[in-house]
């Protein structure tokens, strides 16, 4: 049966657009899943539910993309491991790029610009390891 709300990519983005960060969990094997899938990449099940993760995570890998100041300057790109044991790409918004370190504790936020939601992260106060 086709879901009238669309596929999981559209459902994920629609939640972000409303300021909510939701990911999936497999009802068969219990794994959290990211990025959104139509089937569980762990066990192949199609029985998946959406839930709100804690948003707490840790920087797993980090780079600073160098960019000319007139084009907006350098920026951070990180891979972040969520508490729920999934990894995703995002950026840390409240720290200078060179201050973002592997192991830093971060928290998810959704920014909505002109109706389009984007998942970003903030470093947690005094939480750098």
């Amino acid at each position: 049966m086709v879901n009238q709300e669309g596929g999981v990519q559209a459902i994920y983005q629609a939640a972000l657009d409303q300021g909510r960060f939701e990911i999936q969990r497999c009802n068969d094997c219990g794994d959290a899943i990211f990025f959104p899938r139509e089937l569980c990449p762990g066990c192949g099940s199609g029985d998946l539910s959406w839930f709100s993760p804690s948003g707490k995570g840790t920087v797993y890998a980090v780079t600073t993309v160098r960019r000319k100041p007139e084009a907006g300057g350098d920026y951070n790109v990180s891979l972040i491991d969520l508490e729920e044991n999934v990894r995703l790409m995002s950026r840390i918004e409240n720290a200078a790029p060179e201050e973002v370190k592997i192991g830093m504790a971060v928290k998810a936020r959704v920014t909505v610009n002109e109706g389009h939601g984007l998942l970003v992260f903030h470093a947690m106060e005094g939480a750098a390891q």
Partner: protein
Amino acid sequence: MSGDLNNLRGKFAIAGVATFGCGEAPGYTDMELLAQAARLAVADAGLTMKDIDGLCTASASSTMWSMPVVEYLGIRPRFIDATMIGGSSFIAHLMPAMQALESGQCDAVLVAYGSAQRTSTLSRKEIGKARLLMDPQPYEHPYQPMLPMSAYALAASRHMHEFGTTRRQLAQVAVSARQWARKNADAFMRDPLTVDDVLNSRMVSDPLTVRDACLVTDGGGAYVLVRADRARDLPQPPVYVLGQGTAVWNRQISSMADLTVTAATQSGRDAYAMAGMGPKDIDVAELYDAFTINTLLFLEDLGFCAKGEAGAFVEEGNISPGGSLPVNTNGGGLSWGHPGMYGIFAAIEGVRQLRGNAGDSQVAGAQTAIVHGNGGTLSSQSTAILGTAAAL
């Protein structure tokens, strides 16, 4: 042991190889570079285009690339494989080509590639924009990683964090490649290069500088694979395929389970198992060095060093000319050249070494070579072990 494909070991050989227009070939198209390399490789094998009844090829821009290649070359292949898994494709093509030769589906497979990436009138910026539309990555692109380089930078950051790998050790990979390139008249960049030169060059995506990244060059490359009995009647010394393996675990760098362990662990294991060999049996290693971190990862994942030890291994001079393990003897993607997808050129350099044709960069007495291709953002890995008649 049928799963190890040992029954295919040594039954097929690369009988012809060629490159064309490597470096800069202004005014040439991808197809023209491919066609010239193909023509020369077939001639090198002592065959004619009429003998070619199998084709493997791939393109980074054309989704139906095998059709215009068939049309352009004027061939009527009975076997076609256009598997496209990035820069490793042309090493991965070996296995379906061997299976097709084994079954009798065809008798001579041409594997061919061409890219005018450096001098093409279509700018890389335009290509990048088209890719965003045609092949979106909605969970990565919003954060504007400079792909592919930022993906490799993320892997490098993790390797440094876990194992204490240093920027100097990464830089030594580029310096060793340059030392080999200085011995190879065909290499595109042959100026002296020091570790400090690399460290002081322009940072692009930390910790990788422009000198930690492969070149952007033009070039065509091709090889011809036939059954071993036929290869022995052809003019060139046969270079036998002893082992082969290919593995894909993910596409996005964010989907990689451990950024310090690549699918080369699987492709290498399969290639060694088929060959009945291990790292100690390898005389020359051609490892796709799109970025300096790649060489470290593949030295570890293909068993030449323990995990985390490749930085020190390289810093001790082991992969430089005169070191214990000749790596990227043509100068590699970092200094020989990098026409978009480098895998076929790693294979061709392996053949050059095993034929004893490598001039000043010849590794004395080389009987075995491992040639390893990488594709995407550490996404696909393909490994082949090649050998001379003495290695059979």
